[in-house]
């Protein structure tokens, strides 16, 4: 594998609040290569979306800040860039699409203007070039009648079309990395399939790296190459899709998979993870998953396990992970 497109090293993000500091992301490292899709999986509050926002330095400051770590995009550390230089990266080398395409598009501007903005800013295209390029981009993402759609406003479009527009906007400068934050959660199943298909096809076509953020293991199974599982701000397990689904090593991953595979529990009760995600203000001592973990040993409640490779490229944050293969 050549040098990764994105290399995140020990990234930590904090938020100040009146009740204390929230460590939303702690010591997160991962990398994505060209043409690869990495899925960042976790429940709400796991820090996956915060991590994605931190990559583009879009964490509102105050109250949030990147407290440590580095984000290397093609070898360049984004955390060290000036705000102006950073703007040259955003939208050009690294683009992002969001969960709710209705909210993510400005309701008062036309599609053409919103996509065109990127083209003018980063590529310096002229007015007529912009229109042609916008139409081309819309065609690329499968928007029917692109000339007409370009002149319309977001509210004229359906949810799926809007997400296609978002993708077109993200792809306008052929970025090296596309961050897709829950890109299909707000869409219907049949449309979700269309959009995932589209992202996959475009990734192949342009050789982008894709960071897919999702809570849906079904989507992970269908689209990702590698998976990073997060819990309470930390990475708890990483591996290829095959490894994670076939051989989950962390009890949380196992719990998630169990809860997701409805069909395997035909007629019976599902395997459930008891309890709830801990509040960021009341993090348990020791392993943050310990209170919900059926297999926890006393050590789990007193010390936080480190990530340990159980196999090459297979780090797991669990005292019991080793020696437990294929359980």
């Amino acid at each position: 594998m050549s040098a990764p497109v994105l290399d995140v090293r020990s990234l930590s993000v904090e938020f100040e609040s009146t009740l204390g500091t929230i460590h939303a992301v702690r010591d997160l490292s991962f990398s994505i290569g060209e043409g690869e899709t990495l899925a960042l999986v976790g429940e709400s509050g796991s820090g996956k979306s915060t991590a994605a926002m931190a990559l583009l330095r879009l964490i509102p400051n105050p109250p949030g800040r990147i407290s440590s770590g580095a984000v290397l995009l093609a070898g360049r550390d984004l955390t060290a860039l000036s705000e102006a230089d950073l703007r040259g990266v955003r939208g050009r080398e690294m683009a992002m699409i969001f969960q709710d395409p209705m909210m993510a598009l400005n309701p008062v501007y036309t599609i053409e203007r919103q996509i065109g903005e990127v083209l003018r800013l980063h590529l310096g295209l002229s007015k007529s070039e912009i229109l042609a390029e916008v139409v081309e981009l819309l065609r690329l993402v499968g928007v029917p009648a692109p000339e007409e759609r370009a002149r319309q406003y977001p509210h004229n479009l359906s949810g799926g079309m809007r997400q296609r527009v978002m993708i077109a906007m993200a792809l306008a400068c052929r970025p090296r990395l596309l961050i897709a934050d829950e890109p299909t959660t707000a869409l219907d199943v049949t449309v979700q399939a269309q959009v995932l298909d589209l992202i996959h096809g475009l990734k192949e076509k342009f050789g982008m790296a894709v960071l897919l953020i999702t809570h849906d293991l079904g989507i992970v199974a269908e689209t990702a190459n590698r998976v990073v599982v997060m819990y309470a701000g930390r990475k708890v397990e990483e591996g290829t899709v095959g490894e994670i689904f076939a051989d989950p090593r962390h009890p949380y991953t196992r719990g998630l998979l169990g809860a997701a595979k409805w069909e395997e529990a035909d007629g019976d009760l599902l395997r459930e993870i008891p309890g709830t995600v801990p509040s960021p203000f009341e993090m348990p001592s020791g392993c943050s998953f310990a209170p919900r973990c059926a297999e926890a040993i006393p050590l789990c409640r007193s010390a936080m396990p480190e990530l340990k490779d159980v196999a090459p490229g297979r780090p797991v944050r669990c005292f019991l992970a080793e020696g437990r293969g294929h359980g």
Partner: protein
Amino acid sequence: MADGASRVASAGGAPILEVRELVKHYPIRGGLFSPSQMVHALDGVSLSVARGETLAVVGESGCGKSTLARCIIRLEQPTSGHILLKGADITVLAGRPLRELRRALQIVFQDPYASLNPRWSIASLIGDPMRLHGLAARGERRGRVASLLETVGLGPEFMDRYPHELSGGQRQRVAIARALAMQPEVIVCDEPVSALDVSIQAQVINLLKRLQRQFGIAYIFISHDLSLVKHISDRVAVMYLGQIVELAETRAARRRVLHPYSQALFSAAPVADPQAAAARKRIILAGDVPSPIEPPSGCRFHTRCPYRQDRCAREAPQLRAVEDRLVRCHFAGEPGFPPEVPA
């Protein structure tokens, strides 16, 4: 009519709740110069559910499944059609009889953050139904609330808390306890877990299943999550643009579906298994769901159907028995239809 199909159509045994040809149209107010329009939310939906049974209603947003739920528990007045509870027509009830009816028919909403009034304590939220229906004297009420909380897996210590102090899963348990307080025979579950975290969903689904076994409650389970539906339901109704397009036993539907829309829907649902995902072929439908204001002529699915014929645009298919189920398609039941692998 095939034997299996008749069983599917009218639920096993005597239905506790029956819906006949339910229609709901919403007017959209027109202007002075523009005619008013109608949203066809429901167009002739019929189904039934038996004691202790779970009937799932699936479909994408805008298919009318939530309207169906609200019509059934009489939060909205259907335009036409009938709703029968234990054989009695409850479509036109009002006032006291309607309130009596409420006891038997309850609902659990999708969003546990929105479905509990943040101003009241858990005890009064769960105690309200008892108070309103005189189910427990004032003195007994707290005891009853405590035991209901126990039933849904929460301790009595929750009684004096407020909804905002609870997690999503806990709130949904409270919502279920509130419905249970009426000792209902049918609960309409409107996407009860879709707002919850994955790890919590299983808890709530398990709770619902346990309660069903314990009290013999019938569920009408509205959802867009096909894998969940396949897991929990006994029968499944697939809706598209205000109509049921396929109604089958879940067991049978898991094997195969006959309507092209059901087929696309089921194939589009992601499966949490990379190998299976890689192996299977997905049908990716073109376009979006058409507007329910002006539904397509003929078969409502024809604009997106990969197998459409000229006839589909002209002639509206009826819901008819095909093999062991009901299907609304001209060609269902023909040999090799729908094809296993799309063209």
